[in-house]
């Protein structure tokens, strides 16, 4: 690592999906060759820390090497669920943008 960091949105894109009270955030590197080092940086633990002001549920990461993508499943992240949530964004559709605000260290 050379210590230089950038925002995650520079190197990857993301889409949020909702089911009940669980949100899933895909993380898809623009360049498939970045899959490995992004995976070393963006662990489930770091995502949970980054999003701690938004929700406090567990985060699980699923790896999809066949499409060089990750899937972060965030439990209890939609304030009780889409249908009764009082959040402005009840579906959590904008949570993908919060994930992409993470700082990531570029490989040296």
């Amino acid at each position, binding site marked *: 690592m050379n210590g230089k960091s950038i925002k995650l949105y520079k190197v990857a894109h993301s889409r949020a999906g909702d089911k*009940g009270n669980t949100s899933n955030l*895909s993380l898809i590197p623009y360049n498939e060759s970045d899959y490995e080092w992004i995976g070393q940086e963006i662990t489930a633990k770091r995502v949970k820390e980054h999003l701690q002001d938004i929700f406090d549920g567990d985060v699980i990461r699923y790896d999809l090497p*066949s499409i060089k993508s990750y899937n972060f499943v965030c439990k209890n992240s939609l304030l009780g669920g889409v249908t009764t949530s009082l959040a*402005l964004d009840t579906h959590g559709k904008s949570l993908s943008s919060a994930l992409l605000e993470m700082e990531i260290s570029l490989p040296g």
Partner: protein
Amino acid sequence: MLKIGSGAGFSGDRLEPAVELAKKVDLDYLVLECLAERTIAIAQKEKIKDKNKGYDPLLVDRLKALLTVLNEKRFRIVTNMGAANPIAGAKKILEISREKDIACKVAVVTGDDVILELDSENDILENTHKLKDYKVISANAYLGAEALLPALKTDADIIITGRVADPSLFLAPMIHHYNWSLEDYERLGQGTVIGHLLECAGQITGGYFADIGEKEVDGLAELGFPYASIDRDGTGIIMKTPHSGGIVNVRTVKEQLLYEVHNPSQYLTPDVTADFSNVTLTQLEKNKVMITGGSGRKKPDSYKVSIGYHAGYIGEGEISYAGTTSVERGRIAEEILRKRLSNSIQDLRIDLIGLSSVHRTNFGNEHPYEVRVRAIALCPTRTDAISIGNEVEALYTNGPYGGGGARKRISECVGVVSTLLERERVDKNVKTEVLKNEWEINQTL
């Protein structure tokens, strides 16, 4: 080669992309998926008020636009726009076809309404409650592709139903067309991948995707809807309406493949436990992506049932502040509202829109020019809900300076939880009936 198009990704979706797709591509099937989690509960309430209602509110507009093309090109429509009342929806379609003087047969699949099969001790999946703890409005099982097969075997032009798992609406025509076995789980898994990719319409053609920089998408105002060309072995190629806006590439497909997916190797539907983890994507040419590698294992033993319940009343009020001290005045307004409402309202939520309302944090961006204070709570009574908007509005003359644009709103809140039900208790009620318009009957008699 089987061609299936996607004509709507949710109840409120645009109308004309489906018509454009059906006109410009020789489809075998056009699927319109229009039921969100709680849409059916809201429709059930309509049905209670009027037994001829309870189908999708845009059914009339969508079918008026599509019937003319359907008559010219003779593809088949599959849709869950029946919502809480598929029979009434089918009758309405026949009424429209009579007005247009178009011969039309509609097959109606019912049996998803399982309210009579549930009992008060049923466990709720999301928490430790029982069904008896809820004021239930509706209970609908997510039916699978199998439920649609008898309807597809008829000569109906339109197949209308209520709650069916979204990918199953697409998988059923594949099973019917290629005569796939309902135990060929590998094939059903691949077909489910294709259905899952298509079910949200524009979300795979550049909608819910566009951004500046790496993700620029042209023509979002004329976004083309997707279709897939599907081979006997399940291999699918995703494309979109020719000469339309949007884009289909491996990036849009990857995003949609993982949309609303938890464990990608265990995507549960009524038809199969689908496995998305070995899917491979190949960009064949511009706006053309080939999908292979979807797989699956045995289907779950029970059906998921979605239960709509009365959750109370939501009261909401908003007011704006602008200028250098807008955030500070927003905070004064928040303090006033908390003092005024804390005795009567539980769990009052107050956001400063423009500062931190979407995520409750803003990662250090602290100085917007304007903010909008939003107060909201879920209340047991309508009277409590009304008080929230009233208190916000009263900030005009009782709050900090320069408050403008107050709005207030109350709405009944329909919540959704789920339970599981044994297959037999659902399957025994699933049936198909075919309705024809009088013009057609007169012709055949």
